[in-house]
Structures are given as C-alpha cells and as structure tokens.
C-alpha cells in the first residue's frame, strides 16, 4: 500500500539522533509490549506479513503520532480482535469473558520457539529463477492498496540482479494469511542517481530485496 510506512526518500522527518548508551527499552511497558507481541505471535494465529500490514494500514497521521511499541500494541490488539481471539468489549473493559481455545506460548517452550524462528524459504520444486546475477531488470509500477514490499522509490526503475536469495514466501499473499505461496527473491542493485536524482552520490548504490512478481526483464 502507498501507506505511511513507505518513507524511503521522504523529507521532513528531521535529523537522525543516535542515543549514546541507549537502553533496550525506554519504559517498563515497552518491555511487556514487546514480549506480548512475540508471545501471542508465537501462537501462530497470523503471519509476520499480516502483523506488518496491521501496523502500516492506518491513516498517516495516526501512524506518525505513535511511538514504535505503541504501534506494536495497537496492531496487536487489532489483530487479536480481527482473528476473534478477544472481543471489542473485552478490550474496552479489560475483563475476560471466557477462555480462549488457543494454546499460549508457555515459558518452557520459549527457548525452543525463539531458536527455531520462522524460516520463510520454501521448496521451489521444479521452479527455476527467471533471472541470474548480472541480468538487467525493471521493477514494476505496482500501486496496490494491500501489503507489498516494493518501496515506492524503487518502482518502475531499472536495476541489476545482485544476488538470488532463494525461493521465499511472498509477502503480498502472506499478508492475507497464505503461508505457502512463494516466489524467487533477488537482491536488486540500483544506481542511487536512478532513484534519487543528481543529488545522490555518483557511485553510490541501493540494493533492495524484490520478489520475481515485482520484476520484468529490461
């Protein structure tokens, strides 16, 4: 979606402010918000792309007004409601109206779950990548309203295949709950000036990871 998350190359956000000796969390609630998001996510009720879409799919003003973990908590509550794990009235009152049938992540399983992670490579079967390193490609001018991992600044631009990463789950369909559809994934190298004009460094480049359905041969 052409949403508030797609900000590569946008102006107006001010300088980067590195924080010396930054703490991992800036408030105790951030700790619990982070852990809850991981714990409920580990119950397998949604894909990582569904959670990304839940965070980005909102009015720009609302997105920019939220801190990072505020956005996580807000999207977590929305996802749980959307999936029927909690009701609007439960979220409103804070009072549980019964137990869920979903098994929680228990403490004894945390280490194994975190160690396993969620690999997204899939067996390509007979599928072969359409492109090889060195091939010229042009990114498509895709403007769909749902989840996509082709940033606006890299649409309809000519680049070169830098690497073939493998056959990976496709975020556009994964964001709708489809855990199986996969496509070849490439690192595509663009000259910075092709993306950002003459003010960009002459020899600088930007590499973007793009799936085959985002690309045409050029």
């Amino acid at each position: 979606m052409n949403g508030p998350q797609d900000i590569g190359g946008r102006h107006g956000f001010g300088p980067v402010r590195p924080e010396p000796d930054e703490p991992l969390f800036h408030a105790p609630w951030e700790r619990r918000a982070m852990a809850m998001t991981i714990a409920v996510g580990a119950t397998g009720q949604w894909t990582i792309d569904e959670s990304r879409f839940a965070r980005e799919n909102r009015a720009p003003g609302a997105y920019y007004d939220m801190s990072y973990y505020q956005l996580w908590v807000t999207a977590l509550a929305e996802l749980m409601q959307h999936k029927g794990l909690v009701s609007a009235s439960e979220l409103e009152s804070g009072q549980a109206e019964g137990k869920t049938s979903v098994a929680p992540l228990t403490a004894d399983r945390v280490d194994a779950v975190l160690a396993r992670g969620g690999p997204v490579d899939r067996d390509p079967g007979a599928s072969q990548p359409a492109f090889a390193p060195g091939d010229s490609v042009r990114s498509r001018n895709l403007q769909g309203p749902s989840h996509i991992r082709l940033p606006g600044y890299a649409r309809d631009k000519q680049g070169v295949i830098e690497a073939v990463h493998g056959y990976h789950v496709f975020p556009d369909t994964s964001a709708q709950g489809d855990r199986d559809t996969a496509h070849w994934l490439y690192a595509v190298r663009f000259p910075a000036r092709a993306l950002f004009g003459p003010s960009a460094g002459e020899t600088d480049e930007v590499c973007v990871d793009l799936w085959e359905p985002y690309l045409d041969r050029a």
Partner: protein
Amino acid sequence: MPHDHHDHDDGSHLDDMTARVMALEKLLTDKGLVDPAALDRILDTYETQVGPRNGAEVVARAWTDPDFARWLEQDATAAIHSMGFGGRQGEHLTALFNTPERHNMVVCTLCSCYPWSVLGLPPVWYKSMPYRSRAVSEPRAVLAEFGLTLPEGTAIRVWDSTAEMRYLVIPMRPAGTEGWTAEKLVPLVTRDSMIGTGLALVPDTTGPDAEGQAA
C-alpha cells in the same frame, strides 16, 4: 516541525501506555492467551543473551580465520548458525564486507527489519522515521550525523531490508591489530559498525598502554 516520538519526553503519555499495557497483559493472561512467565523468559533472552556481542564474535572470527570469512561470504546463514547464533530474525543472513572502495550500510525503510540473532533488538534511531527515510536517499548526510565521513573514493551501497533476509556488515579490520586474536578483537567491533553507521574502533596507540595493547 519534525516530531520526536520518545515516550520518556512526556510523562502523562507514558502513564497512559503503562496502564494500557498492564490492562492488556492482565486480559490476555485471564483469557489464557499469555503466560506471564513466558514474557519474562523472552525478555531475559533479549536483555541478557542475544545482543551485538554475537555479531562482534562473527566479525572477529572473519578477521582472523580466512576459511570462515569465505564461508561467511558464500553462505552467511550456515556460517553464523554454526556459531550457535540462530533463531528469530536471523533465519536468513547475508554478510556484507566493507572494503576501501565500498562501504555497506543497512536500513529497513518499510518497517524495522534487523538481524536480531546477531545484533539483538534494534536501537530507536534505526526504527525512527529520520533514519528510515534518509538512509537510502542521503546516506552521507546520515553518516555525518553519526560523526562518520568516508574518504572521497569510497562508494556507498545501502541495503534496504525489504524481505526476511537479514544483513550483517563486516567492517574493515582496524590498522594496528596485526597478530591480535579474535577474542582481543571482539571489543573493537561496535554495533553501529555492523549496521554500517560506524567503523570498527581503532586501538589506542597513543596512550601509556599503547605498546601493550598493540602487542
């Protein structure tokens, strides 16, 4: 005016969030969706076990073990997993080797993708709008805000982490560390040097201990 979203700047806002998150945790616990002890265990993992020290060990080994460096270049996922650094947000990895000709730098413009398994949780600036918006379009200005100015002839390659591939920058080994063991090199490898917003530290060759340090 650029917004500044640090929660600790605003006490009432922080109190609202504290109350909201506490209520949500209680609700989810009562529903049976969350085991509070599991939350403690997750936090313990990222507060005490998984952090930039992991990545620094990978880099220091690459600096001292050419076979490992080659493996890292060809298959970073297998090479890094072989050191025991696997798991969430590190399932698929690529190592980017800095050279005098090319400096690599990593961003996620669309959200906050970051190699947790080797660097831990990302800092606020990495997840912030200023870094996400500008790292791709004006990396040199961004690096200047980190106090880093690259030599004229060094090209920058910015990697926008738009997939589940996670990137670890392998900074150049600092001069004056010839013959050092990997163990001795680890403290020179900063987190920012593995994101590409910094360089590895140069050993102090001017202080009273300089001879001992460089030995």
